[in-house]
């Protein structure tokens, strides 16, 4: 079976692989998944939730006996990353919700990841222990101290195998650098630095230094009354360690070069699509707010997600995107009620596949959408327990926008807006995707012949 590279969407049949989480009628707030991320090899899959917990799944080695079963993801490690805090000075509660997880590339036997809530970024080390020392002189196997006067023989402790234990330890805590709420973290391609972005500022950190951080973007106006836009997402270029982009609530993207100045308030490039002023409405700015920005793996393109569309921009062309895909345009005639129930402020993420040929993003009713950039075909799939038989092929879904509804279609009015797919992830090199549906994590794979 050909891997993800170069495969066209019509060749891919997506199948259910696994689902994690429970089917409780009432979903506890803390169980809502808030971020999903594969590591650079795809061996590990991390999730963060509103309760501040991280769960890491590891892919099983594919067995030769069952070649038709691709490696499954099973729990590898879980830990409490962040805890709720109270800012006494401002009388504000700081949520423990994990906003983002980003993996560092693997450099030794241990795995490292960054996890962040609204205020604090933490570097976690996840390592395995499968041996332990036995035969200490001064203490026995239970750890109790031995009476020194009873020791007559000296021995050398030896390492003996033990049951595999996976430990997660916080190695660095990067705190007190953000007045506003952190929305993004991004590891630099130099593997030495990373950035954290909040609504108004972006800071550059060195992994080794926790008590200092460089401020590289500051859009806070002197007078807060003049505030017109906030930073919504930020990411480093995958290869050029001096380049990063950040998106705004006004639908614009700025590309900055850290070589030009210490404070990158002046952008090197400014990406904005011209708007027809006659089309402007009360909702225009809200729905143009970019909720996610992602570089392609090649570094040549950026993808942005706003409320109704996904856009692909060529770094060399600032005046308009090269591709625009409608995610759920039928919602345009529902904006009034979506504003009233706050859904219009939902922040959807978007992802590239490994070869940058297909892009994916979520929608409502546990639907998610994929767009093939080459064939211009798209598909709507659903993450649902009803399609959860092993290797069951997912059937494309269709929303009916008025007029006669066909049997398999669902009408716009029947969509469940509480079932939103905000977070998805795509394996770096294979057609394996992870889709977070509220408190459940679905894993889908392409059909292996």
């Amino acid at each position: 079976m050909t891997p993800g590279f170069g495969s066209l969407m019509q060749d891919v049949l997506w199948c259910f692989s696994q689902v994690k989480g429970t089917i409780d009628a009432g979903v506890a707030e803390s169980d809502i998944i808030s971020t999903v991320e594969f590591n650079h090899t795809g061996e590990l899959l991390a999730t963060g939730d509103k309760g501040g917990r991280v769960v890491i799944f590891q892919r099983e080695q594919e067995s030769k006996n069952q070649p038709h079963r691709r490696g499954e993801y099973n729990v590898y490690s879980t830990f409490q990353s962040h805890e709720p805090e109270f800012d006494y000075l401002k009388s504000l509660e700081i949520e423990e919700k994990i906003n983002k997880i980003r993996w560092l590339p693997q450099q030794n036997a241990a795995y490292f990841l960054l996890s962040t809530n609204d205020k604090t970024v933490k570097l976690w080390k996840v390592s395995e222990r499968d041996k332990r020392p036995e035969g200490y002189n001064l203490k026995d196997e239970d750890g109790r101290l031995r009476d020194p006067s009873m020791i007559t023989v000296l021995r050398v402790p030896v390492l003996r195998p033990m049951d595999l234990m996976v430990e997660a330890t916080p190695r660095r805590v990067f705190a007190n650098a953000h007045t506003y709420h952190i929305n993004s973290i991004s590891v630099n391609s130099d593997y030495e630095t990373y950035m954290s972005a909040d609504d108004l500022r972006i800071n550059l950190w060195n992994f080794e230094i926790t008590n200092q951080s460089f401020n590289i973007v500051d859009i806070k106006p002197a007078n807060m009354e003049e505030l017109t836009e906030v930073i919504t997402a930020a990411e480093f270029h995958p290869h050029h360690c001096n380049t990063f982009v950040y998106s705004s609530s006004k639908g614009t993207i700025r590309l900055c070069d850290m070589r030009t100045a210490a404070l990158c308030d002046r952008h090197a490039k400014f990406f904005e699509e011209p708007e027809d002023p006659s089309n402007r409405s009360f909702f225009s700015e809200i729905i143009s707010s970019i909720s996610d920005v992602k570089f392609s793996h090649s570094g040549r393109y950026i993808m942005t997600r706003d409320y109704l569309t996904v856009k692909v921009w060529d770094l060399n062309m600032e005046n308009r995107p090269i591709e625009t895909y409608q995610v759920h345009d039928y919602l345009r005639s529902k904006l009034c009620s979506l504003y009233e129930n706050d859904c219009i402020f939902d922040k959807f993420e978007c992802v590239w596949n490994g070869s940058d040929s297909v892009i994916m993003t979520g929608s409502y009713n546990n639907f998610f959408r994929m767009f093939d950039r080459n064939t211009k075909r798209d598909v709507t799939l659903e993450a649902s327990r009803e399609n959860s038989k092993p290797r069951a092929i997912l059937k494309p879904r269709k929303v009916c926008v008025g007029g006669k509804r066909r049997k398999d279609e669902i009408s716009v009015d029947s969509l469940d807006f509480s079932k939103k797919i905000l977070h998805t992830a795509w394996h770096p090199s294979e057609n394996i995707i992870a889709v977070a549906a509220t408190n459940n994590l679905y894993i889908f794979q392409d059909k292996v012949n």
Partner: protein
Amino acid sequence: MSAESPEPASAEEQKDKVLSPEKAEEAKLKARYPHLGQKPGGSDFLRKRLQKGQKYFDSGDYNMAKAKMKNKQLPTAAPDKTEVTGDHIPTPQDLPQRKPSLVASKLAG
């Protein structure tokens, strides 16, 4: 809310059909909330966004709210409390702390 469907229209409804769906939705919203600000994407939204995070009057208010949420009994004066009172000033360590949830994620179950 039903999607718009063709039907005999009054002059006003006919005007709506000519408008884009977005503008029609805007008209609906303005009808419901006539006092909605002129600059919607501007300062009000952004300030609300910047101030996310429920405000409590002070830390005591916060801790009381957390205690209520957990249905915790307020600590009653223990018999030996009389020894503490007047003996030393209570420090934060002496006060009941809000323990974070130690329940494991159900994804790991």
